[in-house]
């Protein structure tokens, strides 16, 4: 099926894009297009106007700068997977990037576009939540940074203004005592997550968990934080029992729906398992003790 006809704009600067978004009637932003193009073709989306940002070269970056890992709006999933910047320090990014969709889609789809799409089954929202990251948007009134936690409202709905363009997402540069991980359960390459969990653990110098972040994929109406589990972890020393308790709390706080991939109980149980695995990896990457897993791979 073909898309309905639309007007195609190709700005080459952020300023130009923002003024187009302000002046045009209900424009839709096209970045990697790996979700939007099928939606247009199935006429699930029928915009009169499409603003294609692929020509804004200044948004094509992925770098550490000003105390953040900054992912520009045109950085593709494959760019993250292949980047020299992304190493064990950014374990959750390194884990998540190769698990997104399939190789062809990773070459086109963007991290920011995936966040903007706000599909509760998207992986990057959980990574951002775990790192307490921000979504940086430019609008007619200038730039603002939206905490990830305040960004996701409903499936496919966010707090982004209609005349705003996300220029980047960013997470704080990890301290040396920090580790992160992302675990995802899916049937096969190309599938969305049945469940996914992103985890960040920041330790103090004594090896106590100072701060924890946990984001969950595909088990609620948006990417969601597992705050009860985070609180349970903070101030404690890592151990299999602690991680098992956190896994259970995350599962309790998740709100999955039964579908063709599995029942709600099963998915909640998978949240428990994935949380424990991700916590184990994060602790190991932080360079603290290796926590023997209670849940075997």
């Amino acid at each position: 099926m073909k898309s309905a006809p639309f007007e195609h704009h190709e700005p080459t600067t952020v300023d130009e894009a923002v003024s187009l978004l302000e002046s045009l009637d209900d424009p839709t932003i096209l970045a990697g297009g790996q979700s939007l193009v099928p939606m247009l073709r199935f006429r699930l989306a029928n915009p009169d106007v499409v603003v294609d940002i692929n020509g804004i070269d200044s948004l094509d970056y992925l770098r550490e700068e000003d105390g953040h890992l900054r992912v520009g709006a045109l950085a593709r999933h494959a760019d993250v997977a292949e980047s020299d910047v992304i190493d064990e320090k950014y374990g959750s990014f390194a884990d998540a990037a190769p698990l997104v969709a399939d190789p062809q889609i990773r070459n086109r789809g963007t991290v920011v576009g995936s966040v903007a799409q706000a599909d509760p089954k998207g992986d990057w929202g959980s990574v951002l939540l775990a790192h307490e990251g921000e979504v940086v948007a430019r609008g007619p009134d200038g730039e603002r940074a939206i905490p990830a936690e305040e960004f996701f409202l409903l499936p496919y709905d966010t707090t982004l203004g209609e005349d705003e363009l996300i220029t980047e997402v960013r997470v704080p540069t990890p301290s040396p005592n920090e580790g992160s991980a992302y675990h995802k359960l899916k049937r096969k390459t190309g599938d969305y997550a049945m469940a996914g969990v992103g985890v960040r653990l920041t330790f103090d110098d004594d090896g106590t968990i100072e701060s924890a972040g946990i984001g969950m994929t595909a088990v609620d109406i948006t990417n969601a934080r597992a705050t009860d589990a985070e609180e349970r972890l903070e101030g404690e020393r890592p151990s299999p029992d602690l991680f098992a308790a956190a896994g259970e709390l995350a599962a309790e706080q998740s709100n999955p729906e039964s579908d063709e991939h599995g029942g709600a109980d099963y998915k909640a149980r998978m949240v428990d398992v994935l949380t424990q695995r991700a916590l184990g990896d994060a602790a190991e990457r932080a360079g603290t003790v290796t926590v023997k897993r209670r849940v075997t791979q």
Partner: protein
Amino acid sequence: MTDEREITLTVNGTEHTVEVEPRRLLVHAIREDLDLTGTHIGCDTGNCGACTVLKDGEPIKSCLMFAAQADGAEILTVEGMEDLPEADGIHPLQEGFREEHGLQCGYCTPGMLMSGKALLDEDPDPDEETIRDAISGNLCRCTGYQNIVRSIEYAADELADRAAADGGAVTADGGASASPEGGHEPPAVGGDADTFCGREDCCGGPSEADPFDREALLDDAEGGNGDAAVDSTDTAVDADDRGDSV
């Protein structure tokens, strides 16, 4: 409001100027405007990978991109493979698919070839896991993928052999992959042996014992009648692999 616009696509080395509506997909421009119907449309949803082409060297799904977005890009489709520098009549990948029975209905094959090409450009000596990952965005409903993996391994070996013959090993391990005994692990699941129909180059066939030792297979075939050669191969598979396959 949907005025057509002029775009330039360099497809298989030839520059084309076409007029497209903004909503025109790249795959439709390739197939219908340029009449290059080797690039297939399988699922129309972005899942199957039959429409995979290389855009500026990277595999992408041409049904998930508008033609206007490819303005100025270099596109490689299956029709261009035989004109690539590494092709000798046909491309080693195409030769691999022929030799290793890497297709049945053939519908996914153009996409598989493009993903295989992108992989070998990046990694001339990929292991099986890497190959499987590289084609994981391409669905095949016939082969079970085993022979497609072997086809790509065949091409990698062929390219390494040629590089060695040209006087320099190109692979990181000094071209060890070109040797029959060093390059290939036996298939993880030897299921083909159970269904082998007795004909060479069919159902996984005699190549099961060592699918890449073609010299030995040819020797076998020449040494007696075909059935005898097949029997001995099948027995060898019995001893080695069959236990794992059930």
